[in-house]
């Protein structure tokens, strides 16, 4: 798979399938691992980074996983391509911005991503559409076993898998579920959800993880604790809380419809209208309006648009994607025009490229 092909398709996890996929966008589990014989990356000079990247890269490509797998040497990629992978959730911002030799293995369906020389030597993730944490765990557990048969991980009897940051030590696991919660945002109940989650030490982040804002009413719920509990217990904790949040979101949606159906329908239709007709539009406004439209489809207020298309538009209207689609670098103002044009084409039922 090359990055040009990647630009025009979309990952399995955006397909809008799987349990509760009206609210749960995706489930993701990642593991952090380090090789025992090397220093962590903060103390790894360029030579060591090259050594780790080259030896791990080859081993990862040869893993007996579902083929084909692609390996990208991230340090050799253009800025725009690195940003594309970030927007696509296939690599982290940290891997994109790091220096020195580093890489990523990707599966064709974009479910599997294994990063080399991120904050830890290895960061592997499995992502699926909808609420599917068990599937993610079974796959990532197997991948971890396969890698472990090739290398020696830094591990201690007491502290488990040793990581560069003590917040990941132990299981090195991050279990996260991405939720679309527009009604809880509108009714301002979202703060209560945050507080409740905080109390049971679960973290809430935006679409692009640490430090990113909650764009398009997307929220990632994940565990914070990684030590002293088994992987199953940590997964269970997230699994238990998600249905409750889904329940509150549905309740808030029902209340919105009940209180003011016409008002809501109007607001959603206007959002859809702007997206279909705008001549220039920012990324922020796009996310905001797409969020309304997405909820409108789920409430049956819009019936000529599919959820997978909307999911894809959230990703494809971002800066690097737009520039890749257009095939040329664009300034912010030009991107807004290109974004509006792309949206008009996609939402009129014509596939971009057919007619300009």
């Amino acid at each position, binding site marked *: 798979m090359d990055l040009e092909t990647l630009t025009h398709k979309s990952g399995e996890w955006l397909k809008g399938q799987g349990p509760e996929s009206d609210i749960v966008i995706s489930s993701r589990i990642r593991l952090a691992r380090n090789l025992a014989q090397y*220093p962590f990356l903060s103390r790894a000079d360029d030579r060591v980074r090259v050594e780790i990247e080259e030896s791990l890269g080859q081993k990862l490509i040869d893993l007996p996983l579902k083929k084909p797998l692609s390996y990208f040497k991230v340090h050799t990629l253009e800025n725009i391509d690195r940003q594309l992978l970030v927007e696509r959730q296939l690599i982290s911002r940290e891997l994109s911005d790091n220096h020195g030799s580093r890489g990523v293995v990707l599966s064709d369906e974009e479910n599997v991503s294994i990063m080399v020389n991120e904050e830890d030597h290895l960061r592997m993730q499995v992502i699926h559409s909808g609420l599917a944490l068990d599937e993610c765990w079974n796959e990532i557990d197997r991948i971890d076993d396969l890698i472990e048969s090739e290398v020696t991980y830094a591990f201690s009897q007491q502290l488990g898998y040793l990581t*560069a940051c003590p917040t990941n030590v*132990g*299981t090195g696991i991050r279990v996260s579920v991405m939720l679309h919660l527009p009604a809880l945002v509108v009714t301002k109940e979202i703060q209560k959800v945050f507080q409740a989650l905080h109390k049971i030490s679960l973290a809430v982040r935006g679409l692009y993880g640490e430090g990113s804002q909650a764009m398009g009413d997307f929220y990632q719920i994940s565990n914070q604790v990684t030590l*002293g509990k088994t992987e199953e217990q940590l997964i269970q904790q997230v699994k238990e809380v998600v249905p409750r949040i889904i329940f509150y979101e549905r309740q808030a949606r029902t209340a919105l419809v009940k209180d003011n159906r016409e008002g809501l329908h109007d607001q959603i239709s206007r959002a859809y209208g702007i997206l279909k007709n705008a001549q220039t539009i920012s990324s922020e406004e796009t996310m905001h309006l797409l969020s309304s439209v997405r909820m409108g489809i789920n409430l049956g207020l819009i019936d000529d648009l599919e959820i997978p298309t909307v999911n894809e538009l959230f990703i494809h209207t971002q800066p690097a994607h737009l520039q890749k689609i257009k095939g040329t670098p664009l300034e912010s103002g030009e991107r807004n025009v290109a974004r509006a044009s792309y949206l008009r084409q996609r939402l009129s039922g014509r596939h971009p490229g057919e007619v300009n």
Partner: protein
Amino acid sequence: MKKCRRCSKPATLHITEIVNSEVQTLHLCEGCAQSYLSQQDQPDPDEMSPAAAKLIEGADLDELDHIVCPNCGISFREFRSQGRLGCPHDYIAFEAELMPLLENIHGATQHCGKCPKRAPDSSQRQYELIKLRNELRSLVEGEKYEDAARLRDQIQSLEVELAEDQPEANDKDDD
């Protein structure tokens, strides 16, 4: 030209005072001199502030900061400022400092999840034991006493097995 005793500006005023029958000269810039003269009761800059005194008392914190990992050469202070450790050995080198931190972050200091399959057989079973004890705790918390009793028997037999396998006391963690 002399520098002001309180800031780095040139000292333009030289104040001579007699304190406890001793002559003291202060070299100050205009700004500092004015504030000095308007607050005569302000402590002498050489006198230690209570905050500074506290810092000296807490000198062991400073000592901790200077502990260096013999393996990768990172100091605890460097770890504190960048939030990233330098190598796996740091968890041993900074053990005394890290344990309270881990307790704080995770509420625990003992791993009980997955362990590498390539780990030695005895430590595999040690792990099994840790894992089972952890499960036992949650069963008891959940008041599932029958399951807990069954698990307790399993734990006991595993303990006996392990004791038989390892006649010498060998409960020390290795690196």
